[in-house]
Structure formats: structure tokens, C-alpha cells
């Protein structure tokens, strides 16, 4: 023990040598830009004149922004709800069949595909052609078997397009949730589940009274991760609709302000808003980490 202490004294500067590259990169690519972006959000389009909060007023009052906020809320609710609950259901029901690993791979597969690739895959699924011509999109082709069929422009129709996009996100991310939840589910002592069955609990009761409470901490982790993901959603929307037909989201709007309109003040303000909505999740993460360290 003594020797270890002496060694530690001698190598006092070494920790910093080990840390230096990481701290430099993190400082340059994350810490400095965060501070700078907050400052830029208070300046005008060309970052020359101080304009106070007017970029934020823009963000909270203009119609395209309000639509983006509404859509992010839709994403937040439906994406999080379905990824987590489907992930949980898949984890539990797949556990009961012998070909579990095969179906898990199938559900997990989209995680390997880029959002751009997924965008192309689903644009094809959603593609539509006028009535009377052969439908080459799977979805419309299935519907064309029904009576009174009218082809649906899934990505154009304002009633369906946001949900069509959200489903692509769900298709990609359910596998991620399933993998984590499945590991947690398999960690529940089987005797516990057996015992409650012997005591006369039916499958539903076992699910709601034993499985869900036991998995609560993991469900919370997965839900937090999904919320952080969904608030930043960009690629899917950028590739599939680019925010047209009322499908705009915050991150895509930020990109447009930056690259199309060259309004760096507004773009920065939108980025700051994105950070502000994510901060609660950050606090949750840090707290959870601290608790974990103590135990």
C-alpha cells in the first residue's frame, strides 16, 4: 500500500498527460461551442449586432417554428411510447419461443442501417401512384385489395405524414429498446414469477404486478435515452420530406436557418432551445450515475 502511495506522488503529472488529448478535443468541440452558441443566439443574423432575445421571440411565435414544436411533441409522445412499450412486449414474448435469437436479430437489424438508408427504404414502402396504375409501394398495394380503394400519399397527406415518419423512427429504435429490456427481463429471478403463478396470478397480473415493477429502473433508462434521441430527430425528416407538408422538426429547422437562410442568430437560438429541453434529461442521467457510483 505504501509503495502505491509513493508511486502516485511521483507520477502526479501523468494523469493530466493521459487526459490532455481528450480534454483538448472535448473543450474545443463541445464546451467552447456551447458557450459560443449561447452568445451567438443573442446576436443578429450575421453575428454583428446585439439583439437581445428577439431570436427567441421569433422561435416561439412564428408559424413554421410552432409547427416544428408541435411535431417534436408528436414525436416525443408517440415515438417514446411505442419504442419503449413495443420493446418491452417483444422482449417478454420472444423469451417464450425457441427461435428467440432469430426474431431478435430481425427486429434489431434496422439499428445497423443509417437513417438515410431507412429513409429510402420507407419512402419506397410509402410511395404512391394514381388510382388505376399498379401500386409499387407495399402499403398502397395492400390497401388496393380493399373495396373503394383510393391511393394514399402517406408523406404528403397532412393527416398521415407525421405518423408515417414517426413509424420509421420506431422501426429503427425498437430493437435497441428490446435488447436492453430483454437483458433486464432475463435478470428477474424465475422463481419469483413461478411463485406468483403458483399463487394463482394470471399472465396479465404477473406482467403488471411483477415484471413491470421489477424492470422499472431499466424502463426509465430506456425511456430517457429515447427522449434524448427523439428531441434531436433530424435525418429521417431531412431525407424523407425535408419538413414539407407540415412535417418540420426543430433540428431540421435549425439546419435550414443555418444553411439556407444564413441566419446564425436564429439558428443558434433554436439550438439553445434544443439544449434547454434536453437539460432535464441530462440532470436525470447525472443523478442516476452518482447514485450508481455510491452503491
Amino acid at each position, binding site marked *: *500500500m505504501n*509503495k*502505491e502511495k509513493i*508511486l*502516485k506522488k511521483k507520477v*502526479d503529472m*501523468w*494523469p493530466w498527460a493521459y*487526459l490532455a*488529448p*481528450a*480534454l483538448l*478535443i*472535448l473543450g*474545443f*468541440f463541445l464546451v467552447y*461551442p*456551447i458557450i*459560443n452558441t449561447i452568445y*451567438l443566439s443573442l446576436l443578429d443574423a450575421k453575428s454583428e449586432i446585439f439583439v437581445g432575445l428577439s431570436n427567441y421571440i421569433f422561435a416561439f411565435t412564428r408559424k413554421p417554428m410552432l409547427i416544428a414544436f408541435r411535431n417534436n411533441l408528436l414525436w416525443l409522445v408517440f415515438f417514446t411510447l411505442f419504442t419503449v412499450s413495443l420493446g418491452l412486449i417483444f422482449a417478454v*414474448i*420472444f423469451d*417464450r*419461443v425457441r427461435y428467440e435469437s432469430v426474431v431478435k436479430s*430481425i427486429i434489431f*437489424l*434496422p*439499428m*445497423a*442501417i*443509417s437513417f*438515410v*438508408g431507412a*429513409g*429510402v427504404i420507407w419512402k*419506397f*414502402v410509402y410511395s404512391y401512384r394514381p388510382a388505376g396504375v399498379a*401500386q*409499387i*409501394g*407495399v402499403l398502397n398495394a395492400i390497401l388496393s385489395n380493399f373495396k373503394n380503394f383510393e391511393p394514399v400519399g402517406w408523406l404528403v397527406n397532412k393527416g398521415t405524414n407525421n405518423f408515417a415518419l414517426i413509424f420509421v423512427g420506431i422501426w429503427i429504435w425498437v430493437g*435497441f429498446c428490446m435488447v*436492453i429490456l430483454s*437483458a433486464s427481463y432475463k435478470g428477474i429471478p424465475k422463481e419469483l*414469477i*413461478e411463485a406468483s403463478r403458483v399463487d394463482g396470478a394470471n399472465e396479465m397480473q404477473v406482467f403488471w404486478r411483477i415484471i413491470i415493477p421489477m424492470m*422499472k429502473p431499466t424502463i426509465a*433508462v*430506456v425511456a430517457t435515452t429515447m427522449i434524448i434521441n427523439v428531441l*434531436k430527430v433530424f435525418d429521417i425528416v*431531412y*431525407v424523407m420530406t425535408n419538413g414539407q407538408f407540415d412535417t418540420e422538426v426543430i433540428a431540421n429547422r435549425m439546419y435550414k436557418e*443555418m444553411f439556407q437562410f444564413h441566419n446564425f442568430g436564429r439558428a443558434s437560438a*433554436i*439550438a439553445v432551445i434544443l*439544449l434547454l429541453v434536453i437539460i432535464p434529461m*441530462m440532470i436525470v*442521467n*447525472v443523478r*442516476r450515475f452518482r447514485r450508481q457510483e455510491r452503491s
Partner: protein
Amino acid sequence: MNKKRLNFFPRFLLHFVIIVVSVVWITPSLGLFISSFRTRDMVISSGWWAVFGRVFDFSQFTLDNYTQVITASGMGRAFINSLMITIPSTIITVVVAAFAAYAFARMEFPGRQILFVLVVGLLVVPIQMTLIPILRIYNTLGLAGTFHGIWLAHAGYGLPLGIFLLRNFFSALPRDIFESAFLDGASYHTAFFRLALPLSVPVLASLVIFQFLWVWNDLLVALIYLGGTEQVAPVTLRLSSLVNSMGQNWHLLTAAAFVSMILPLIVFFSLQRYFVRGILAGSVKG
């Protein structure tokens, strides 16, 4: 036990539900894959499922779409660019993260706790917060549109997760082996290179796969720092501009998309175990 308890009907229902779910999940990708081998006329005139009507008629399939997207549409070039971007980005991230993680896990220095909490906080910072300041610096330094610039940017965005993952692994390694190494006169460096790193090969593999897939599949970072020039654009960027320019040319778009996905799919199928392990270790556990 529980399998025996379920009688025939729920059991049948269970299989039915699972198979329906699997079919729903696999069909979109299957459609893409099949369409990429069909001729233009075929793709326009009938749905891709029509091939099931005459599976053994190989004359209906063609490789022309691939030849065309790889050469004329620039997907071949983009594939090379993606490799040029992804491999160095991954190496830089993992190496830098390993050193820092070791310092956080096994060395004593003032501010260790608070610095690490900062790293955990940085895990969730939206990339959007960093784009404008860095792009400006890149424009001044002439790093915009270069591979060097994007390597470092990806390292910056990948480091928090990398450090987090490896630090947790390093600190979970048994104390005794380090103490006995120190008693035998090993320095911190020897302990790092001879003990910590060899013991962490599985978690290093997870991190490599993670970072590789993340960088390969990234669109936003490439879009901002590389711009649209074909000399440097990776597959994601090229594919997304093809989506705009090709419109309804599905025979080409599907082939281009498959070119962009082939490598991640190979990595995924051959190394799924490590990928899953990385995901499990990366989620802040409850």
C-alpha cells in the same frame, strides 16, 4: 415450466403474433433488396413481390443498377470516402478515450470526480449546439471540406460515450491485480498497456463497432463540415442527394441505398454480440 402451462391456442397465437411482427419488420428491407436487382421497366410496372411468382426465372434480375450507381452516380467514390472518414475517426476516438478513461478510473488527481460528471453531462448535448462555432473556425483554418476536420469532429462527438464506457469497465476490473502489479514494480503505464488494455478487448471491440457504425451512418456532421462536394462526400451524403435528384428512379435508388448499407450489415451480422454488449454497457444503468 411456463411453456407447458400454456395450452395449444395461446401458444399458436403467440407464434402467430411473433411471425407477423417479424414479417412487418423485415418486409421493407426485403423490398429494397429485391428491387435493387430488378430492371427499370420491371420496377415501374409491378411491385417487387411479383418476383415471388417466378422465383426461378433469373432473367428478371440484373446487376446493371449496381454498375450504374457505383460508377455514374458516384456511390463507388462515396464508399471509398466513407472508409477514409470512418476508419481514422474510429481509431482516434477509441485511442484518446482509452487513455482518458484509464486516468479517470485508475489514477488520482484533483477534480477527477467533477470532470467525469462533466463528461456524463456532455453525453447528451445536441450536436446542433456546436455546429456554427466549429464551422466558423473550420472555415478560417481551411478545415471545412477536408477529411482531417471531420475526423476530429467525430472524435469530439464520440468521446463522451467512449470515455464513459471504458472508464466504467476499467474501474470494474478487480483492484487486486493492479495492486499486485504495482508491488512488483509496474508503473502506471505498464499497468495500462499490459493489464487494463488486454483485459478490455471485448469492450474495446464494442466501442470500435459503435463508433464505426455511428460515423458510417452519420449524415448531419458530414453535411455540415464536408458540404456536398463529390470528392469528399460519404455514402449517406451522396445517397441523400440522389434521393433528391433521382425522384422516382427506384431501381437506382434502392441499389444506391444497398451499397450504403452493405458494410454496416456485414459488421452487424458478424459482430452482433459485441454490438449488443456495447449497448448494454452504454446505457446508464438504474
